[in-house]
């Protein structure tokens, strides 16, 4: 399936510093249409029918989330744009923010109107401090043009923490606290920021909204697969000739992205979805990219034949051990123990029962961790044991 630009349609076309260049590309027409012609319920219905699902990793239906927040009781409600993009190997949100901050602002203003919120936050990771000024100016220009009369947007800067991309940790962080995850339920649409109904959406999810409003749900609904509508923006890095950002219709093959577009050669391993994503061998390169199969937030890291699977998994688990918030024991202790075992394997010092321990630990963590980090942390271990088991077996110490 082909490349198609819905999310990236303005990237490289408009000047992100000048709102007039955005207005020339139908900018803020969707917001005007929404405010003038569509009651909030109709907007939500449109998003629901479009089939748009979250692009931040979990794939939750966007319209349903908005509907829950719309219907929830609350004197105040909030819209949060998740621009924390901490997943290893993802940079598409940065690419988008750098080139088209206006579509995001328009989308947030539509979201605010739809759920009945007067205030929105963009949670921007500290590593993207260099975008603060551009984003701030884009918001001021939108305000000066009168597009934000009903809705105010503030930027909240993170301070270096992967887990703050997880929605409940993110809200804790905006509230000025340690970014530790919350127990759920309640979920954010009923009780979120400051205990008020809140929607949290990834940058890329929101970028789709104005086009859905302008072109209609049915237009969007015809793109993609049965359960994955629209496009996905991928961040491709690692052993490829052309790393970068690519937007493809959902359901496109991994092969097309990695081999044809990013020009990889001698591929051995592909990590899809970053540290908490899946690891697959080259012979599965014909897998389509969709919510039904593999996707995550669209991080694609390619490893060629010179790379060692144990090193890859070891480094991945070390990352997760470092970034774990420490609140729940299965994740806090589990990632540490996994890292220790993998360290041993990486120097050929594994022992016979280590593989069994890794498997048992993986199960326990998936079942009992509090949030997506701990639940998905075993993915690289489980996948590598499935597809590259002999690499482990050959590192068991013989004596």
């Amino acid at each position: 399936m082909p490349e198609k630009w819905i999310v990236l349609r303005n990237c490289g076309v408009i000047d992100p510093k000048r709102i007039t260049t955005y207005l020339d590309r139908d900018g803020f027409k969707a917001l005007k249409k929404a405010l003038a012609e569509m009651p909030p319920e109709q907007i939500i219905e449109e998003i629901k029918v479009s089939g748009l699902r979250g692009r931040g990793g979990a794939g939750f239906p966007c319209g349903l989330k908005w509907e829950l927040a719309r219907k929830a009781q609350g004197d105040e409600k909030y819209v949060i744009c998740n621009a924390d993009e901490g997943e290893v190997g993802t940079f598409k949100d940065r690419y988008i923010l750098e080139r088209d901050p206006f579509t995001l602002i328009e989308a947030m203003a539509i979201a605010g109107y739809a759920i009945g919120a007067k205030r929105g936050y963009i949670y921007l990771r500290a590593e993207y401090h260099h975008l603060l000024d551009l984003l701030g100016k884009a918001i001021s220009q939108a305000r000066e043009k009168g597009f934000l009369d009903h809705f105010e947007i503030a930027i909240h800067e993170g301070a270096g923490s992967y887990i703050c991309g997880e929605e409940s940790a993110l809200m804790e962080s905006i509230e000025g606290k340690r970014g530790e995850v919350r127990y759920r339920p309640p979920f954010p649409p009923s009780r979120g920021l400051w205990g008020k109904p809140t929607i949290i959406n990834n940058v890329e999810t929101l970028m789709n909204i104005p086009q859905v409003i302008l072109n209609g749900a049915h237009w969007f609904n015809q793109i993609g697969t049965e359960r994955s509508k629209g496009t996905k923006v991928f961040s491709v890095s690692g052993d490829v000739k052309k790393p970068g950002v690519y937007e493809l219709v959902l359901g496109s093959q991994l092969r097309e992205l990695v081999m044809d577009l990013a020009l990889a050669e001698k591929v051995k391993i592909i990590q899809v979805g970053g540290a908490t994503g899946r690891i697959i061998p080259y012979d599965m390169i014909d897998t389509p990219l969709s919510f039904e199969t593999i996707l995550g937030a669209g991080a694609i890291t390619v490893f060629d034949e010179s790379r060692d699977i144990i090193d890859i998994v070891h480094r991945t688990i070390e990352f997760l051990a470092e970034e774990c918030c420490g609140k729940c024991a299965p994740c806090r202790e589990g990632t540490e123990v996994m890292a220790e075992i993998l360290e041993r394997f990486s120097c050929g010092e594994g022992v016979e029962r280590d593989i069994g321990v890794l498997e048992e630990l993986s199960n326990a963590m998936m079942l009992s961790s509090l949030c997506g980090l701990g639940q998905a942390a075993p993915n690289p271990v489980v996948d590598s044991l499935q597809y590259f088991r002999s690499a482990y077996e050959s590192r068991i110490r013989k004596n």
Partner: protein
Amino acid sequence: MIPTQGKKQEDLLILLEEAQNKLGYLPEELMAELAKSLDMSISDVYGVATFYSFLSTKPQGRNVIRICKCLPCLLKNAQAIIESVERETGIKPGETAPDGKFSFELTNCIGACDEAPAMMLNNEVHVNLTPGKISQILKACK
């Protein structure tokens, strides 16, 4: 050390970020002062200050170097960059130079993997690093 009039507990992280930018680190007295004016315990303030990797409770160099050590950067030989920073500054990851010019840290993915290897120098991102480029960048530091 930083104005706290009218500030509430929910402003703690923003105040800490402000102090970090202004002072380069978060001294104990500052955290005690914040705790008092926001009506919180010192350990709660300390808890927030130590949670985030861009906040530091120890004095830091005038320039903070953060080299990315995640896989996409490692594949593009981030190790050579780490070694060249060690050579240029005479310090290892986790250390601050005695003359206070540099602190050197390793960090997780900074979202520049398409132009790996990458680093942050203070608030700025530098990409497509080579040992030669590192030498130039660090020489330009005050």
